[in-house]
């Protein structure tokens, strides 16, 4: 994996220590950067994200990355909020996002016994197998922490369910996304990151 040059996009408001450690366990070094040159030259780009969509988009705009990211041709992986940012918009603060994948993230509705955020281990349903999901099985568990989610759509390759079905893994051209945290999802998460690095 020595030819792999992973760049994790910096300053999107996420704690990336655990993500870097997860990549390190797979033998991949990563560079955390907001530099356009670094990002363009990476073999793989990861867009992490924790926090509010509006805040993250404001940071991306300040760094002029809102136009760069959609133009990338190498595999790009959005994680959690980072996946939602790949879409057109988020209900969270009525935010216009990167506009790569059609659709809008909507807030979960809380119910008795179903608090929001959706937090914890939940099962995956594979909708469309492929290289990205290699080695994953139906009902494998992944670790989620989120309040907004994408409905199933053309990009959905795996789904999960929390009061309503939602997209857990997506793929759109060279853009990939996971709503859960692969760095905290034990073997399933590690396999998924490994698959991404192999793309």
């Amino acid at each position, binding site marked *: 994996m020595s030819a792999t040059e992973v760049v994790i996009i910096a300053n999107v408001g996420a704690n990336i220590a*655990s993500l870097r*450690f997860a990549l390190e366990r797979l033998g991949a070094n990563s560079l955390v950067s907001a530099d356009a040159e670094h990002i363009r030259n990476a073999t793989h780009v990861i867009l992490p994200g*924790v926090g509010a969509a509006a805040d993250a988009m404001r940071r991306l705009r300040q760094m002029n990355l809102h136009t760069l990211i959609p133009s990338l041709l190498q595999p790009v992986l959005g994680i959690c909020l980072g996946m939602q940012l790949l879409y057109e918009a988020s209900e969270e603060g009525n935010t216009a996002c990167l506009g790569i994948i059609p659709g809008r993230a909507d807030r979960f509705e809380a119910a008795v016994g179903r608090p929001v*955020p959706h937090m914890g281990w939940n099962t995956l349903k594979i909708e469309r197998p492929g290289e990205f999901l290699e080695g994953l099985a139906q009902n494998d568990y992944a670790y989620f*922490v989120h309040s907004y989610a994408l409905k199933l759509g053309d990009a959905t390759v795996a789904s999960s369910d929390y009061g309503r079905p939602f997209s857990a893994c997506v793929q759109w051209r060279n853009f990939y996304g996971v709503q859960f945290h692969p760095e905290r999802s034990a073997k399933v998460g590690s396999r998924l990151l490994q698959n991404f690095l192999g793309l």
Partner: protein
Amino acid sequence: MRFRNHRIVGDILELAARYRDEGADELVFYDISASPEGRSVDRAWIWRVARTLDIPFCVAGGIRSVSEADEVLAAGAEKISINSPALEDPDLINALSERFGAQCVVVGIDSETVGGEYRVQQYTGDSLRIRDSGRNTLDWADEVQRRGAGEIVLNCMASDGVRQGYDIAQLSALRKRCHVPLVASGGAGSAAHIAEVFRTANVDAALAASVFHSGELTIANLRRELRLLGIEVRP
């Protein structure tokens, strides 16, 4: 018991790796003497734990400010848990929740039945400083939720460390008032106890420590037994 005679459980990294391999869903690291000693949890080990673990973990122990919480989360912890500092300064719950989101903010409550009432105990990590906080447990649980706690761990002190089962009555009483995930703590001695607390008190998670540390129950065996008892567990 646990609180008055702390066991040394060996190198935490080794234990963390063992529990990870056995299939724990989440680990919680308590530095329970941090608060009574007025210091916060030593951070160096958090990086090492984050490097080892590929499951979520929570750090508890004397976190008294947004900046201390920030350090712990930046080092790779998924959540922070506050207990005595929340009783000293309840606004800390609001501040943490606003800054990091409710999902990171766990409030731990040590509770004891006193004169037929559930009472919150403070500084439980120190047998000399432990005291009644002056608060009713159920009222405190309402307040911490209003202030933005995303999860509550209820540790029933009378059950803690004795492995005779969880305090189902107290956990059930809190469940009725708790709209965020509720974690049962104190009393696990067998898979049957854990199955019982899920079924009867309808908690979202069960926390256990001494029963695993002692080797009396392995997480792998627990998972198998829970599955046989019809409780859904991650394979």
